[in-house]
């Protein structure tokens, strides 16, 4: 049993794994990662749709993506594991003139940050997806450097490399409670005993709010179910189609080998940790899918392969990174609102800087600190699927 550590990371998902690796790679190897489940990387990381994209409306999200996607390009040779980055692009389809007009400012921001985003006519967009219904499309954007990855392969790569460097991963080890001295957290209680530490990183994903509550902190992160419906093998859609989003409905598709992944968030569903597939929601999903992607009418649905996971959502759909103001050795790295996989490398880097250098400096994260909620300074990410 470990009783002492420099840093305790709560959560062995892709964010916790990246934080542990980046700390260890800089020499901070007395790190313990707590995983409440019997096996690591079985939570929302493994249940992600795994998209990675630059096309955000928030400057910070774009920067997090730029850093992270660059690091995913050579992940396997550098870290190990299997990033499986497929840069087939993201295609956003707009069918509402007002939304399209408003989106021009987002395009300007993306271009100012050198995101190679292209504006497409409906006809050009139709070149990417066979039989795409463009009858009501008014505009589209495409970024060839977007795509998708293998979140499990990445998280395991980070964890294995971190272990090689001396990090310990404890399974069946939920954080049951915390010990404090003055304004500092000094210990994490687990079923195996208390681990005394200098820093705690809350990377508990959809459980980050509850972990905070256990420590007496109000961290506005709530879990929401997100379902991914999977088709039977459907070669009529090529493997290299972009991850395509029908902005009007929020419905999206992408290929995974021969199958098609389809998703559409149910924004009226209350917060929960439910990760069973919502079959009642399927009718709504199919209606949106078949309207935009009529080719799917010929695809069968694989109930067995469909799955559900959790988004860890904040009020502004931006993550909460950095120190707790009233407990500076407690750091949050959670609330990614569906973008944790695509921002894991940058997050690990920044949290390591926050701990080892006193402050994250590779990317400015002030707008992601938890203080923004008290100050009422919210600039919500609008490109959320």
């Amino acid at each position: 049993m470990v009783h002492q550590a420099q840093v305790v990371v709560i959560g062995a998902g892709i964010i916790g794994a990246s934080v542990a690796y980046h700390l260890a790679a800089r020499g901070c190897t007395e790190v313990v990662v707590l995983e409440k489940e019997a096996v690591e990387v079985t939570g929302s990381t493994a249940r992600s749709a795994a998209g990675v994209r630059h096309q955000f409306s928030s400057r910070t999200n774009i920067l997090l993506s730029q850093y992270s996607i660059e690091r995913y390009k050579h992940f396997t040779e550098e870290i190990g594991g299997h990033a499986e980055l497929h840069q087939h692009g993201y295609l956003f389809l707009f069918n509402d003139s007002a939304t399209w007009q408003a989106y021009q400012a987002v395009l300007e921001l993306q271009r100012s940050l050198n995101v190679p985003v292209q504006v497409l006519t409906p006809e050009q967009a139709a070149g990417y997806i066979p039989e795409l219904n463009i009858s009501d499309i008014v505009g589209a954007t495409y970024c060839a450097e977007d795509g998708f990855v293998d979140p499990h392969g990445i998280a395991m790569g980070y964890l294995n490399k971190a272990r090689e460097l001396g990090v310990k991963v404890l399974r069946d080890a939920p954080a049951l409670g915390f010990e404090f001295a003055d304004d500092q957290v000094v210990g994490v209680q687990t079923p195996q005993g208390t681990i005394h530490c200098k820093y705690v990183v809350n990377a508990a994903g959809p459980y980050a709010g509850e972990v905070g509550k256990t420590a007496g902190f109000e961290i506005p992160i709530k879990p929401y179910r997100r379902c991914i419906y999977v088709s039977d093998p459907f070669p009529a859609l090529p493997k290299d189609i972009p991850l395509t989003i029908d902005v009007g409905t929020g419905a999206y598709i992408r290929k995974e080998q021969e199958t098609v992944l389809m998703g559409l968030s149910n924004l009226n569903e209350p917060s929960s940790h439910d990760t069973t597939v919502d079959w009642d929601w399927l009718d709504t999903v199919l209606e949106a899918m078949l309207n935009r992607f009529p080719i799917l009418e010929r695809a069968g649905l694989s109930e067995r392969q469909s799955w559900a996971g959790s988004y860890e959502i904040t009020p502004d759909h931006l993550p909460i990174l950095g120190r707790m103001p009233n407990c500076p050795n407690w750091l949050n790295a959670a609330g990614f609102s569906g973008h944790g996989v695509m921002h894991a490398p940058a997050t690990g880097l920044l949290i390591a800087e926050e701990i080892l250098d006193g402050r994250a400096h590779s990317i400015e994260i002030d707008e992601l600190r938890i203080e923004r909620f008290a100050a009422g300074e919210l600039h919500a990410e609008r490109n959320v699927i």
Partner: protein
Amino acid sequence: MQSIDKLFVNREKQTAGFVKMVQGETPKRIMMIEAGGGLGKSWTVEFMRAECQRRGIPNTEIDFADSVVYDYLAMLRRARDGLGPAAFNQFTQALNEVTQPTVRIETGTANTNAINNLLGQGNTFSGSNVNVGEVVAGNVIKDNSFVINADNAVVRQALQDRLTLAFFECLTALAAQGPLCFFFDTYDKVTVEAEAWLMGHLLPRVRDGLIQNVVVVIAGRSVPKLDNQWDRMIARTGLDLFSEPYVKEYLVQRRGLIDDPNVIKALFQGSTGQPQLLAMLADNILRSQDSGGDDDWL
């Protein structure tokens, strides 16, 4: 010209400590030599490098007083070249990739479909890269350029982090074969990027045992100020003025001047035992004793 060890006096403590470090006889791995101007810091570094040569220890020196602007790439490339490029193929490969000129061909259409249609069935256009890196006999021998090709600071940071990772993979493998040394001289002129790399990457890895067998010597009028968590790894030393016996040893035994107590005393008082000044005085005396002048032809 006499070799450096023939001229060297009064730095036995530092050099003995350095030898202990490279032989692994002390847990200390980082030596800080902080002293004022003219006290022989660079000489001491050169002597230690000569000791490395004698022992066959790979080593690299970066003198921040030279004409190179040590940005991130310059640091890593200099270190690689000093330690032996053959051990850094993986790093150089990564360096070539991040510095290769990239040619983006604009098709004038939203995608490559138009060109592909022109090319006909079975032919695919997907862009073009130009790679001027060369590989000969398994060794990557050429950097593309000295510039990381990145559109913005964040991507540049990502590429630098990739290079750092590759560099330390190579360094760790090389250090597993035996000791190796980094020398940083004139640290008071360190560049911001070099200091960030040193303090953020190299020294912490040495401190935390992530790379074994690596000894780092930093010399300057000022050196990094590090807190007590580094104490176990750091040997701090200054350089004293020469006392009179060392002045005599230097002038008589090393430089071959006549052993005249009055002259020795005068030179000791005149130089106050400062090595650089003493060396200049000895040079001038020897020059004045030289019968055949180069100027005879004038």
